[in-house]
């Protein structure tokens, strides 16, 4: 009974800082998916391009990011690259952890979004492009007016999924001290050693966020009539 009471006490005590951390988590994730989407659309068009000069950089970027762990990318960007720069310039270089987190997660997300967008574009029947081109429309008019608007509706479910994946993976930013949800929990554990209730609390806050997002995605799918073209 005492144990249960003390657990509940810890959860109540830690909750305000967990919620503050959750706000950072959501901010970092939203910004990263936003910038990742912009990067991803261009990388997808690059990967589908017939021009090598556009295709090859996109291929390298997508393969490198998807083929290496996010944790390694975080450490490389936060410690490795500043270390390299300061060894050249001789000046110490520190980056703000939140800024670093957004940059790394945007770059990371961009590669996954690129694959989602590419698959979305390729899922549009060939006849759509042929109809548009047979009317004299150019390649870019066809993309903008015909292919991308249709692909957009098809990528909503996987984009929602990408958001959820990144929301969870942004917990890795704890290692560079970004004060997000997991880090907030860790700080509390460091002084109280109450790891069980705190990490249960952390897990539950993540769960509430991911379930809410998947509801929202589901709702917008229905609003936009995804799947009934």
């Amino acid at each position, binding site marked *: 009974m005492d144990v249960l009471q003390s657990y509940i006490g810890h959860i109540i005590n830690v909750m305000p800082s967990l919620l503050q951390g959750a706000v950072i988590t959501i901010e970092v994730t939203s910004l990263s998916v936003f910038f990742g989407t912009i990067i991803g659309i261009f990388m997808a068009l690059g990967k589908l391009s017939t021009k090598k000069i556009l295709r090859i950089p996109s291929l390298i970027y997508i393969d490198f990011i998807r083929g290496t762990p996010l944790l390694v990318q975080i450490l490389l960007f936060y410690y490795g690259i500043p270390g390299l720069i300061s060894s050249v310039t001789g000046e110490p270089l520190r980056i703000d952890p939140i800024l670093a987190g957004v940059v790394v997660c945007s770059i990371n997300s961009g590669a996954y979004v690129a694959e989602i967008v590419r698959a979305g574009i390729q899922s549009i029947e060939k006849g759509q492009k042929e109809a548009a*081109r047979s*009317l004299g*429309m150019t390649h870019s008019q066809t993309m903008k007016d015909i292919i991308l608007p249709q692909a957009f509706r098809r990528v909503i479910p996987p984009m929602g999924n990408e958001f959820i994946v990144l929301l969870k993976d942004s917990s890795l930013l704890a290692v560079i001290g970004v004060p997000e949800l997991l880090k907030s929990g860790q700080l509390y554990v460091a002084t109280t050693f109450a790891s069980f209730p705190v990490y249960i609390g952390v897990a539950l806050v993540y769960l509430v966020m991911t379930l809410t997002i998947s509801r929202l995605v589901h709702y917008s799918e229905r609003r936009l009539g995804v799947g009934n073209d």
Partner: protein
Amino acid sequence: MAMIEVHDLHKYFGDLRVLKGISTKVESSEVVCVIGPSGSGKSTYLRCLNLLEEPTTGQIYIDGEVITDPSVNINKIREEVGMVFQRFNLFPHMTALKNITLAPIRVRGLSESEANDRGMSLLRKVGLEEKADVLPGALSGGQQQRVAIARALAMQPKIMLFDEPTSALDPEMVGEVLNVMKDLAKEGMTMVVVTHEMGFAREVADRVLFMDEGIIMEQGTPEELFSNPQNERTRSFLSKVL
């Protein structure tokens, strides 16, 4: 010069030889129907005429202009050559009217209101004025195909290509689409129609081409080809479809 002239057209898909030397002319206002067994290269031939497929060798002239030259502006050529597909290929995220007005606005530079006027008069012509604001998904197959014809006509092309326009339709809807095409033929449109509708070919075509194994095996007026085919393969094909 004829409206369409094709000289010794060959097309390969990789190692697969699909067109093996096609030469033909289509005069202005002529209606040519192309018949033949499936896989004989009819669609490929038609799609070469607006460069949806790139010919491997040979020349194609549209209204006196060579289009098989690498320097040619493909988009300019396609503005003059309308195409209607077996599966309609309407843009599902746009209303019937918007399907029709998009290319005239984007490509021909029409204002929205000019394009809408043109679009509505074309919808009237194909009997679908009241469907202007409907999405393609809510139209029957026959209605979709009529919108697709209107969409191609909205560019005011010199030539219309049809690739089995009624093959994906339920039988009761074939007539409404063929009627629109008959009207078009009467108005003097130059048309090349790949079809299995022998009745239509007999009634509307000025000339019928029988294609088999990537060549034009035989051609003539409907009367000549249907009543008195010279080639053994034509006879055997016609005996199966008539």
